[in-house]
């Protein structure tokens, strides 16, 4: 009888031991990023990405088709719609413009090795300035191999240059103003080596980088406070760190005027260019449709007139 009781007691204790040992379970973790580390990481990654080499990276591309676009709608009814497409192959390029106003477009063509640029002007210019549609002006190769930053003279890549410049201006503005919010930078690295920078640019930086100008009644609504507003921006990089797409996209609501501004401004490489497409039979142009300017003073005056027509001031 006693032996049985002892046996039961031993069994009971064993069960207790086994049960309590089983309670030594794994702990469930809750992971969080260290706040300062996260900010520092993205700031450092952004500074490495967005630098002067970026524009040079654009300029060293030898074959591409790229598009740049600006779309804006303001609450007062003002609009901005313009798009440029640049096809580039080894120094030759063909550029086309699409403008919201028919007749205000300017296309251009340059053949590698040539010292000329051919421009095809829309009806608004030919009629206002009484010129022939084709203008031939001096224009040497951009020599991008040795001066890649000259790529910003090409229409579509210039959109990327303006966005990058806007980012730099914004960064400087926020750095100088310690009371302002921190530059919102977030770098996403993908498995294929490509990257996406999510950031923002200020409206004043966009105007400072010549993305657009405000005119008329709209200019009066754009207050100093409005200019400090940030707009979301994204820049996509390929695995070599070359910008393949950039876009500023957002809506600004003025804090001290009745203005809402929707903006979508971007640049994107859409593919490679066929050399056959980047070719215009300029040798067969009839003199009746062509004019040529060679004197620099004359050229400067001509572009001033073009700009005046473009802005409706001619």
């Amino acid at each position, binding site marked *: 009888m006693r032996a049985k009781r002892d046996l039961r007691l031993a069994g009971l*204790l064993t069960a207790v031991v086994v049960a*309590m040992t089983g309670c030594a379970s*794994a702990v469930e*973790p809750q992971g969080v990023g260290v706040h300062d580390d996260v900010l520092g990481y993205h700031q450092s990654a952004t500074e490495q990405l967005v630098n002067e080499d970026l524009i040079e990276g654009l300029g060293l591309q030898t074959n591409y088709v790229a598009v740049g676009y600006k779309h804006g709608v303001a609450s007062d009814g003002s609009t901005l719609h313009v798009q440029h497409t640049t096809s580039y192959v080894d120094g030759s390029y063909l550029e086309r413009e699409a403008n919201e106003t028919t007749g205000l477009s300017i296309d251009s063509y340059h053949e590698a090795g040539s010292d000329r640029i051919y421009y095809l002007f829309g009806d608004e210019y030919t009629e206002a300035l009484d010129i022939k549609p084709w203008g031939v002006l001096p224009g040497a190769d951009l020599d991008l191999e040795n001066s890649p930053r000259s790529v910003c003279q090409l229409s579509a890549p210039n959109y990327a240059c303006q966005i990058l410049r806007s980012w730099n201006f914004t960064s400087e503005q926020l750095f100088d103003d310690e009371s302002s919010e921190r530059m919102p930078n977030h770098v996403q*690295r993908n498995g*294929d080596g490509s990257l996406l920078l999510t950031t923002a640019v200020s409206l004043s930086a966009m105007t400072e980088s010549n993305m657009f100008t405000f005119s008329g009644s709209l200019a009066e609504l754009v207050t100093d406070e409005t200019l400090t507003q940030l707009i979301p921006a994204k820049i996509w990089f390929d695995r070599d760190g070359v910008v393949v797409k950039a876009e500023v*996209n957002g809506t600004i609501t003025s804090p001290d005027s009745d203005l809402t501004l929707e903006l979508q401004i971007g640049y994107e490489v859409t593919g490679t260019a066929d050399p056959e497409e980047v070719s215009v039979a300029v040798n067969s142009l009839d003199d009746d449709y062509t004019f040529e300017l060679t004197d620099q003073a004359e050229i400067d005056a001509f572009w001033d007139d073009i700009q005046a027509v473009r802005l409706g001031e001619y």
Partner: protein
Amino acid sequence: MTQQPPYGSGHDPRYGSRFGPPPGAPQPRPGFASPPPSAPPASAPERRYAPPSAAPPSAAPPTHAPSPQGFYGPATPPPAMQQPSPEPQQKPKKSRRALAAALITGGAVAVIAVPLGMALGWFMQTNQYFDQAAVEAQVEQVLGEDYGLAEVSEVSCPAEVKPEQGTSFECTYVLNDSTQSVPVTVGSDDGQLLIGSPADEQ
């Protein structure tokens, strides 16, 4: 007022874009702007890797067993009406021995069980570990959501990491065919993991 410089001036455009209604142009068309891109996908739901449920502690041994109701024992006869006895009934000596035995057994159980329980408590406290797979999942999630490393793979963290505040270790992961590492520190005894800045591969 013209703010755009003419052609040939460095990196500036040849002609500018004015934001406003051009004279003579048709009335602006509000709403013509391209729609904004679709919103990024919502963050992945938090993945939880719950450890196996802890077994409930064993019940304490019963202090007394229920009285056997007998099919097998002798049936208790119903109490008969008796005349009160003039002398008090004496307890049998066997009951005293049983009581003493029970006290001794109970004391022995207490002497053994209390230290054993304390020892087991200490054992449990000092032998708790993070669920390794759960740690790796948390690291992958934070790398993706906080550090923007969207497509890491092969996240590997050490096994048997104790949830003791201040404990540090490193996890490795593969991104873009390159093995990287990230520091992890236990932020609290209840399982918080502080995931530091991953090594910059650029």
